[in-house]
């Protein structure tokens, strides 16, 4: 069986306005890639139906090393958590090509 290597998956659910800042942040922090899609939802800052510009939310996924995930998350916390709806969580995942992420 092909060997698997542990990585971290960092998921960030937040306002669409942060898509560009967060992906830039991730790149600078050392992530090799990212994946985004549009979501709707509700949280502390109320419901976000995503039906028009200011109401749109995204889910951003980054597969990376634990250090990079920590770096991205803590920077996102300090820069954005105070003023933006922001949900973040980490999960343990395994990949086949450890150098790719």
């Amino acid at each position, binding site marked *: 069986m092909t060997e698997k290597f542990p990585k971290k998956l960092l998921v960030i659910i937040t*306002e669409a*306005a942060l898509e560009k800042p967060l992906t830039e942040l991730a790149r600078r922090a050392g992530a090799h890639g990212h994946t985004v899609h*549009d979501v709707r939802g509700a949280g502390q*800052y*109320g*419901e976000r*139906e*995503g*039906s*028009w*510009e*200011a*109401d*749109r939310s995204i889910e951003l996924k980054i597969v990376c090393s634990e250090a990079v995930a920590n770096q991205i998350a803590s920077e996102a916390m*300090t*820069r*954005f*958590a*105070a*003023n*933006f709806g922001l949900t973040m969580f980490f999960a343990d995942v395994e990949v086949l090509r450890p150098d790719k992420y």
Partner: protein
Amino acid sequence: MQVPATSAAARVRLECNFDPEVLHSKRTMVDVVVWFFILGVVAKIGKSDLRLPEALYESLSIYLLLAIGLKGGTELSRQPVAALLPQVGALVAFGFAVPLLLYPLFRTLRFDKANSASLGAHYGSVSVVTFAVVSSQLARLALPVESHAALWVAVMEAPGLIAGTLVARWALGANPGPGPRTQLRWTQLAHDLLFGKSVLLLAGGLLIGAFAGDAGVGPIKAVFVTPFKGVLAIFLLELGLVAGARLLTLRGDAVKLILIGVLLPPVLGTCGVLLGQALQLTVGGMAVVGTLAASASYIAAPVAMRQAVPEADPAISITAAIGVTFPFNLLVGIPFYIWLAQQVHSP
């Protein structure tokens, strides 16, 4: 503020509530597109499962911006540019002044610094759809408007946003919010406004219209001119849903927001009409500038303020802009600015 001299006849009309010759019956007073907005509000408040796909919302807003630009552009090429400069200058200055003047007012109403600046930016900028509705009303009343009115929309989009951002920087600079200040990059803001969807499409449409001229635009009129009002109707259905959602979330500061949303537009609108008079615009032109002044942006402003003044709570500005002011202008404001422009015009 100079009160326009009103003739006796006009005064009578004032008392009997709006010009009875022009707005003769209740039925014709309400433009058909306004009913679509009301349908949207009713659907939302009635908790209907009606949802317009986001892709439709985006497509329609792109269409409206382009179409408004194109329409203005075909006429623009005929204007001497020099003649337009004073207008453009005055409108830019007006939009820039609004957030500066409103800031102390909002502070007095106990909004915090960031929200006061952001609210000002929303009212300093303009609502493209409100412009479309006043244009449609004026067409119905057969009141001509300067054919390059779309240019006014394009130039009044950004100044209020820039001024609001400046106010926020100045006010928050001394007393930063909880998070560490993000460096505001001015070049970034300027770029985002100029290349933002609204200005880009409006200006793009204007330029295409100007380059291609009437003959060039002719074959695409079946898309950008003929169906304009019907598309506006569908867009207003969607905006009704959005406005209804904001009304449903009104809470603590509801009274303040409703007061602001209802009282500001007539004041700003009156200033706008008078500015139009000073610029020697037609009656239609005064009504349009009045409407633009009274309108609050909800396409460009929320996006810009989220970047430039993230400390502001977007729910506050958006509720005032689209939950209160937009319906107010649709139902009461626009007829009033038109009426006022007619009064002001009476020699």
